[in-house]
């Protein structure tokens, strides 16, 4: 399961609408809670360097990833996942998504954007220990309302 605030969830879906008909992409910062899953505390929109084929490809520049990882370290967070959009295609991982996925233990959120409108957002956890045994596993997305977040913060569960 991946937990994300309502505001961050809405923001990453809106990002897909903004860049339509091109793919958007970004990084999810937060913490992994063993036995529970990834908990997103901050999303960081990134640029898509695949300007040659931005309607069906995305790539985050390594330099930008280094900067985001540094930002995460400064905030006490980890990179726990990534998001991107599929313009006019289902919110399911593709063979390209799978081949290019190397962050085991991280969540890959995909939003389908149909005719400019975000429709479905699914999450896939990259499991396995190596390139040879990696696999995408469907994972539940729990969108937290502000009231739930406050309650969890007060209980020290965030």
């Amino acid at each position: 399961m991946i937990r994300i605030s309502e505001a961050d969830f809405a923001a990453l879906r809106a990002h897909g609408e903004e860049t339509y008909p091109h793919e958007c992409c970004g990084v999810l910062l937060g913490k992994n809670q063993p036995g529970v899953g990834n908990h997103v505390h901050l999303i960081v929109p990134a640029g898509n360097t695949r300007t040659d084929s931005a309607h069906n490809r995305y790539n985050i520049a390594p330099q930008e990833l280094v900067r985001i990882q540094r930002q995460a370290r400064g905030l006490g967070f980890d990179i726990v996942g990534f998001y991107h959009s599929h313009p006019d295609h289902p919110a399911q991982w593709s063979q390209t998504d799978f081949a290019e996925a190397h962050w085991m233990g991280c969540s890959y959120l995909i939003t389908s954007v149909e005719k400019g409108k975000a429709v479905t957002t699914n999450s896939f956890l990259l499991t396995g220990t190596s390139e040879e045994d990696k696999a995408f596993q469907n994972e539940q997305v729990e969108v937290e309302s502000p009231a739930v977040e406050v309650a969890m913060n007060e209980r020290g569960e965030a």
Partner: protein
Amino acid sequence: MKIHIPTPLRTYTGGKETVEVAGATVATTLEQLALDFPALRNHLFTPEGKLRSFVNVYLNDDDVRYLPSKEETVAGANDELTIIPSIAGGCCCL
């Protein structure tokens, strides 16, 4: 020097996000890293000993692949290495 480890590889560094490793060049530092944390080797290098194509290594703010001496670039104790696997994909075949 300090080496920053990305989330998925921290399993092999005992959970540490930053490790200290000695080395005179980027290549010798990475080799020492693989000696200090043997389970990392397969994730960083191909069986032929080349850095895996999706593993980016930055010396401070520079991609090592684009430095004139690449992995043979001299690195000092105050430099920092960052290992960052690539992130890419797309919705369908071309």
